[in-house]
């Protein structure tokens, strides 16, 4: 193939055609790899679990006795 491009013939575009053939020959596997190389996203087979358990600190709950009483007394309309 390399020699073919160096070969001079009476056809004026022979060298160009030869290089194009070469390019196509070289690019085809590249193109194929680009097309198949797409990022594959597949759904996991297990359900997605988001843990919404929010840490409650027990000692803080004890300290909130007065505060909870206060909010109820100060906002009777929403409780």
């Amino acid at each position, binding site marked *: 193939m390399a020699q073919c491009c160096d070969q001079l013939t009476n056809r004026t575009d022979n060298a160009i055609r030869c290089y194009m053939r070469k390019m196509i020959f070289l690019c085809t596997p590249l193109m194929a790899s680009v097309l198949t190389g797409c990022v594959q996203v597949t759904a996991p087979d297990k359900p997605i679990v988001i843990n919404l358990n929010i840490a409650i600190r027990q000692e803080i709950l*004890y300290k909130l006795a007065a505060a909870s009483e206060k909010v109820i007394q100060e906002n009777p309309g929403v409780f």
Partner: protein
Amino acid sequence: MRNSVEMIIAAFLLGATATSATAFQSGREPAYQSARESGLVGEKSDGYLGFVVPPSSSVRALVEDINIKRKAVYSKEALANGATVEEMALRTGCRLIVERTVAGEKYQTPSGIWKTRDGSAPELDPRCPQ
């Protein structure tokens, strides 16, 4: 005859006073109060109101509005006490079920079931301070 008419008027006035006194004591809007009394809404263990039955659009709007206001109140008080909003809400929720939910009104147990308050002690979240 006259006596009985007077009695009826007196009874009516007394009843009206009692009703307004209850409403005044609770400090709630009449629509919210009646939704509680009729068991449409109840207290959840996390400090917010929940729907016992699928709500009408007006009940849904009422509850969402109250829950937003509750969250605002919890947030403010949590910040002042170095607690998280969830901790403040849970702690207040314990108190709301015990102190502010009267017999006949609904509350949610830790297992998620709606129960009606009666004379007995309510089922509280195990994290509620005793």
